[in-house]
């Protein structure tokens, strides 16, 4: 559903900045069709499974190679996606699978951290800014040390 014109223009700006900052931290943007091409078993958030009826779901979340869930918010300034724990938002989904696909409604992008923090409610929130990384050995950047190695954001207007 398209929103008012003015808001739309603003959203487009946030999206451009979000995209730039996300790629700075090693995340990427892909389109919806890319999800089905991911190899291995899937862990898909309840309510999204219907979009990909043919995919192999992992019986054990610890075995999943790709996690797919919706972002509850995003921050343009930092390229972050946010997740709030809830009945259909397992905390481990954004952590266990080595590839994390995030469906983001561009309208959910806040311009900066201040705006995002002002919207937090009493759930547990995680602000995720890029794929997991470490530089503990010789200061050399390694991705995917405990959390996901790949963070893929798919624009998903509701």
């Amino acid at each position, binding site marked *: 559903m398209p929103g008012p014109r003015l808001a739309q223009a603003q959203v487009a700006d946030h999206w451009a900045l979000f995209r730039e900052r996300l790629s700075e931290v090693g995340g990427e943007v892909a389109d919806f069709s890319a999800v089905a091409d991911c190899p291995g078993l899937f862990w898909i958030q309840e309510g999204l499974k219907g979009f990909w009826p043919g995919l192999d779901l992992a019986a054990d979340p610890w075995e999943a190679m790709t996690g797919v869930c919706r972002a509850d918010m995003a921050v343009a300034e930092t*390229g972050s996606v946010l997740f709030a724990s*809830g009945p259909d938002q397992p905390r481990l989904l954004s*952590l266990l699978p080595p590839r994390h696909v995030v469906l983001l409604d561009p309208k959910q992008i806040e311009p900066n*951290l201040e705006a995002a923090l002002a919207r937090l409610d009493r759930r547990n929130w995680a602000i995720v*800014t890029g794929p997991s*990384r470490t*530089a503990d050995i010789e*200061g050399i950047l390694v991705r995917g*040390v405990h959390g996901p190695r790949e963070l893929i954001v798919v624009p998903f207007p509701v």
Partner: protein
Amino acid sequence: MRSDFDKRAERLPLKVVDSVRTASANKVQGRFQAIASVFAEYDSARRQAAATKEYVLDNLADLLVELEASCLKNGVQVHWAEDAEQANRLILGIVSRAAPSALVVKGKSMATEEIGLNERLIQEGHQVVETDLGEFVVQLDDDVPSHIVTPIIHKDRTDVKRTFESHGLSPRSDEPEELAAVARARLREEFRRADVGISGVNFAVASSGRLVIVENEGNNRLSTTAPRVHIAVMGLEKVLPCDTDLALFLRLLAASSTGQRLTVYTHLVCGPRRPDEPDGPEEVHLVLLDNGRSKILNGALREILKCLRCGACLNVCPVYRQASGHTYRHTYSGPLGAVLAPGLDGVHSHGALAFASTLCGACQEVCPVDIPIPELLLKIRAEVGATPAAPWPVWAWFAQRSARWRMALKALPMVEPLARPWTEHREWPEPSGVDFRRWWDQRP
């Protein structure tokens, strides 16, 4: 006069000095770039952060009471620990109730290093696994961290590979990528089986009760999400008034410590798993650790309690770079440690660290909350009293009588060996061959 600190620093292998110097120089560069790209007005950001911290210190007791009330409302159990012993006993009680011989996974936490929690848990029959890559290596080595942010800054890839091999892990190469993959695979099982997760806290918000934990690897989130019980250990001074204060502090911490715009994971804990949630800990405990902090609050070193533990002052310090963290013999090293260690444990046990500084002021310059570290070091020096023996009284004795002075000049080449600690790294000035008086008398 060389101190024990100097002697320990001199015994460091060249390889360690090289590792520390290279890594800290890179971190200084990273910080510089991050600050330039994140802040349009860094100075005012820093002043605002320092003022907020000042407010926190002025109102610490009230804010902590407010934090406790907010946490309780969120379902977080709050415990107060006056000292290390009390904190350890408290935590031990929670862990033992979770499982008689529990598997504990830990995210990186300097507060738990400070109280020696791991040894205590292990003594009582629990198993403890450090899950941050650097801390994991430190634990395998039975070592202690040499940097508050980068625990194995003193090691290179071959050291890490050797450590892994001596513990039955077989990396195929010494590439950091491979070493990290080996640690990841090994620690997955621990996360899965763990009964309790223990973490530190970077910020705790009094008004909302939100516990904020930042990290890059994901081990901290895993440690505080997968096990049934989460224990967060926090130094009293980490409290902030409101959620809206977080944005500034998150940016300052990420830029100053690792040169990032924001750390990869910012975990905002607001309570245990709710009945309708699929995962998350059933119990969340917050341990508020004093352990000398309230004493610091009411003393001359008060401002060190503003510290965010970003480590920027370590990276930039010429003494830390040359000496590495272990030389300080305390959980907290570098300029911050040289103030905090004597602050927490008393100037009589660690006051000598205040002399391990050139007072160049670089630490204060990079501090995101503008802590006047050189000034605090001088206060500790004054309290310790003993300043290193200056040679001036000796010089004065010779300089007051011309006969003595002439004798001293003649003898000067003979005392050169005494100056060896100085001349090892510097040129001994060559005498011109003739002294002033003789030149004056014999001038044409």
